[in-house]
């Protein structure tokens, strides 16, 4: 790719970016949120046909004019904001653009069999007839990966493929990547997890504000330098250690909390009991399907009657949380993992998205107060490390990481008593991640009870005072901070039974 540029309206997002991909090489693309990584890759994938610059494939000038065209050129993509179709089954999604069959008539049996094989390859043990909307976020991410892998591409673009994946699934993916590399596929890999870059990338390029600031072979350059390239004059604040909670009075107590599956046949969360004190940050860790997300969803009231408990107490007062509204009234905040379906309102600006939760406080008589709202939005942007200019943008056009910041930030404005976060920093760059961690700690220090779930064992280990490890919906272990190394958490999460993911 040579001298690629791209504008959205008056904003120049890419400015003369050049990038070389070599067969049999993994090229890491790095940069802070909104640097232009996804945009660059989307140009390669034919999503935006109106760009400047040229693309050479095997020395021939090409111009992918649509995703279909890019596919025909042998370019496959794992998109950051997943591009699966929720109302179709896994099998249907895997072959959506080119169904198996004769003369356009679909052979479902063949599709199902082929799908089962592809799923097994990425380590997903799921019925291919399941609707994608029934899958958890990590499962969907794996299906997306499986779909791109199944296309036999010569160029494979992976835009944060592991943002919701935990240890074993990532290992599996890296094995597959190694295989592809050996077969001579050119790979582009985007991630904000630096350790992954070290593990699989051969070369790296750093983008900043739509320009290339540096490019190097991995291993020939210290990672500190890379981080400086990414963040520029600003440094990643050191991840400060949590202050030990001063008061240890019970803030959130949960007894025998269960969540039924939609058909009522299984318990996704099985009689979980725990207590979170004021000022405490408790991690929830489990492999995909262990039930961490469902636990948080259930506590937030989002699942209605599917979630039940013997007792839930907040500050020792028994409560019943039947809906997200009731949760909010009780000071319970919930940050969902899936920002596109549950987090953001597209079409509304980032500012309006950010103030949605606290709107009643900002409009006491119902009438909006734009100045107050603006102040609140700026405070939110500062909390999560979002550039203030981004506030005026349609939330749907924000970069993935910036979207995540809005989804998280809108809950932090009101100083919740109980904060439930699922993957709070999914796709957030390392600079902002540290700020967010600091903010969460500050909230806890101010007396909130915090529950954090996520696929990144490191993050959980770094953030939490102690970690509840979930296995098949049950709390399998309660690990104190000192023992909670990523490796230990993973080992506990996998238990004796073979992991599902």
């Amino acid at each position: 790719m040579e001298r690629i540029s791209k504008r959205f309206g008056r904003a120049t997002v890419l400015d003369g970016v050049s990038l070389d991909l070599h067969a049999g090489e993994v090229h890491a693309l790095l940069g802070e949120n909104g640097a232009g990584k996804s945009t660059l890759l989307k140009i390669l994938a034919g999503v935006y046909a109106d760009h400047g610059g040229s693309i050479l494939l095997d020395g021939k000038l090409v111009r992918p004019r649509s995703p279909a065209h890019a596919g025909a050129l042998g370019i496959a993509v794992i998109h950051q904001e997943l591009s699966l179709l929720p109302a179709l089954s896994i099998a249907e999604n895997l072959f959506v653009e080119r169904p198996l069959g004769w003369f356009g008539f679909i052979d479902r049996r063949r599709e199902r069999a082929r799908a089962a094989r592809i799923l097994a390859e990425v380590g997903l043990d799921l019925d291919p007839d399941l609707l994608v909307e029934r899958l958890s976020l990590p499962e969907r991410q794996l299906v997306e990966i499986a779909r791109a892998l199944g296309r036999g591409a010569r160029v494979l673009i992976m835009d944060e493929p592991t943002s919701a994946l935990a240890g074993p699934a990532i290992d599996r993916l890296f094995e597959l990547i190694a295989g592809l590399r050996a077969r001579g596929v050119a790979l582009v890999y985007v991630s904000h997890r630096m350790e992954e870059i070290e593990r699989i990338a051969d070369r790296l390029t750093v983008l900043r504000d739509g320009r290339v600031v540096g490019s190097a072979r991995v291993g020939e350059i210290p990672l500190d330098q890379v981080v400086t390239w990414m963040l520029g004059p600003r440094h990643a604040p050191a991840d400060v250690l949590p202050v030990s909670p001063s008061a240890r009075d019970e803030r959130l107590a949960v007894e025998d909390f269960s969540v039924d599956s939609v058909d009522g046949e299984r318990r996704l969360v099985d009689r979980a009991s725990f207590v979170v004190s004021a000022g405490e940050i408790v991690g929830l860790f489990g492999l995909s399907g262990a039930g961490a997300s469902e636990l948080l969803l259930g506590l937030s009231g989002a699942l209605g009657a599917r979630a039940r408990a013997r007792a839930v107490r907040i500050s020792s007062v028994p409560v019943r949380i039947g809906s997200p509204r009731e949760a909010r009234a009780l000071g319970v905040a919930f940050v969902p993992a899936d920002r596109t379906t549950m987090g953001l309102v597209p079409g509304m600006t980032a500012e309006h998205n950010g103030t949605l939760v606290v709107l009643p406080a900002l409009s006491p008589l119902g009438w909006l107060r734009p100045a107050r709202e603006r102040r609140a939005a700026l405070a939110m942007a500062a909390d999560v490390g979002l550039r203030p200019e981004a506030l005026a943008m349609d939330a749907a056009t924000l970069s993935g990481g910036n979207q995540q910041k809005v989804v998280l930030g809108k809950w932090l404005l009101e100083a919740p008593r109980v904060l439930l976060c699922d993957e709070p920093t999914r796709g957030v760059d390392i600079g902002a991640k540290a700020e967010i961690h600091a903010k969460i700690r500050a909230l806890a220090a101010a007396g909130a009870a915090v529950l954090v779930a996520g696929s990144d064992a490191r993050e959980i280990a770094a953030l939490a005072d102690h970690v509840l490890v979930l296995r098949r919906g049950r709390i399998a272990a309660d690990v104190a901070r000192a023992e909670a190394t990523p490796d230990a958490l993973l080992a506990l999460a996998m238990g004796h039974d073979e992991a599902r993911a």
Partner: protein
Amino acid sequence: MSETPQHLETPAPRSPGKPAAWHHAPLARALVSLALVLALGVIFPAEGAFFRLGTHQGALRQASVVGILACGLLPVILAGGIDLSVGSVLGLSAVVAAKLSIHAGEPAWLSVLLVLGMGAACGAASGSVVAFARVQPFVATLAMMVFARGLAKTTSGGTKVATAVPGPDGVLRYVQVPPLFRALDAQVFGGNVAAVTLVFLAIAAIVGVVCARHRLGRYLYAVGGNEEAARLSGVPVRATKILAYAISGVCAAAAGICQAAQEQQGDPEAGVTYELTAIAMVVIGGTSLKGGRGGMGLTLLGVLTIGYLDKILSINAVPEASRLMLTGAIVIVAAVAQKNA
């Protein structure tokens, strides 16, 4: 529109093994509406009329023309669009079919072919405006609705195109009803089924198979489910949309021919407000106007539900004002019952 993401709310089997064909449960739900309406027929049989075969033949025959429109609308609605022009295209097609086969005396196959082609062109035109110019389907097809009605009136010269053909001297000349119209207006299978009902069922079968078993069908669901994701997945979004509207146009043309055959004339006012009924038939079964969810089974149940409701109120000779109120009330009860079944 009211659908909460199924992810959190709708019961559906997840357990592997059991196929998660989501449309099975909705089909059962849609049956609730139909059963409710049929129960009304049993309770108010209009002095036994409801139990006479003719009543059911009649119900089917009456529902057929609008049913054909509903079949055509299904692909459009699955793809997240809407087509308001079907009633007008029906009227235009009725006029043109009558002109061709009564006045010009063209053979049946040629008339049918020309009219269907015209319908496809109308649909493809709306579809192109939607796909290329990205005009909202409501606006694009509303424009086509008005345009096609005007064209129908222009073509027909403002009057019905009937077997009384005005000569150049203004004197009427009476001609035969063309064989095409007679064939379509006949009862077949020993007088037990109307030919138009067969046409309706054939079209339903074809469109149903395309939606459920053909690549185009999958594209329709994909585009309606999430257009952007579909595009990213390499689905030819524009072609899919244009084809969907073209199918709708062809079906509207077929419905127009059937209408003309049954009326034995081409009425430029034919099909006014049919689009509302046809859309209602598609969505009452549970196919979502948001796109991406639904199917031919649901549509057929919707056609029957509305067709029978109409017939039952009619054989009971319910007066106009009460009939309207009852229709509204029953539709709501059926829809609510279906959601909570």
